[in-house]
């Protein structure tokens, strides 16, 4: 993550009980960054899904691993990076199910892509996966992007 001047880093165990406190933290950071309420909710959702995928798929539900989260913001974007220390996941294998195939599961990646403007997976220097998600901040007077997909 490039130096944006403003940001925060936090490390949590790969334990799903930590996701609620992380959402509380996001509320605070996103407010500091000046994100509108709806955008804060969307970042909360995307980060929850990103961390849940790491815990479930990368760490096989072990709560003894580590997840690093970095939040950075500037005038026109809010960026979150989630780093894990597992195996690098090939982005081409990360797919969501078709929405008309209604069944439990397979929605996490879809939700992340839907609510964030950029979602990228890269190999990090520890050999794990770095998930970077960026949300563009609307300029005053600019209409919000319709994310309902209708």
């Amino acid at each position, binding site marked *: 993550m490039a130096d944006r001047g403003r940001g925060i880093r936090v490390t949590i165990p790969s334990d*799903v*009980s930590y*996701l*609620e406190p992380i*959402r509380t933290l996001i509320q605070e950071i996103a407010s500091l960054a000046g994100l509108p309420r*709806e955008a804060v*909710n969307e970042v*909360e*959702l995307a980060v*929850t*899904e990103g961390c*849940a995928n790491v*815990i*479930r798929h990368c760490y096989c539900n072990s709560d003894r691993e580590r997840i690093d989260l970095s939040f950075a913001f500037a005038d026109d974007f809010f960026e979150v990076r989630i780093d894990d220390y597992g195996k690098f996941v090939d982005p081409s294998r990360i797919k969501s199910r078709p*929405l*008309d195939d*209604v*069944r*439990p*599961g397979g*929605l*996490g990646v*879809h*939700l992340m892509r*839907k*609510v964030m403007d950029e979602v990228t997976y890269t190999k990090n220097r520890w050999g794990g996966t770095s998930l970077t998600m960026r949300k563009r901040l609307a300029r005053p007077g600019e209409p919000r992007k319709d*994310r*309902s*997909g*209708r």
Partner: protein
Amino acid sequence: MTIQVKREALPDATVVSISGSVDIYSSPELRGELKVALDGKVRKLVIDMDGVSFVDSSGLATLIEALQKVQAYSGKLLLCNLSAKVLGVFQLANLDRIFQIRETREAALEG
């Protein structure tokens, strides 16, 4: 825990009221409460989400699972009292077209 779940058996329906965050952490507890109602093959299951502040894909998966089980025995499942934030997540996944969603508990019990 990040969730509270209450189950009430009414004459014509079972109401499961949820409050808190329905996420990967709390979904197993919700699944357990719903299982009790579903094992009894209740004809109408109303899930009152008045106190739900957050839902993620695990929460959606739990509700889809319940819906499919109810449909398998020709029962009915309705959701009610969704906040705009929670309804927004259903809309992102097009699930507002799959679930029967009512504004109030009364409307859900009638419908």
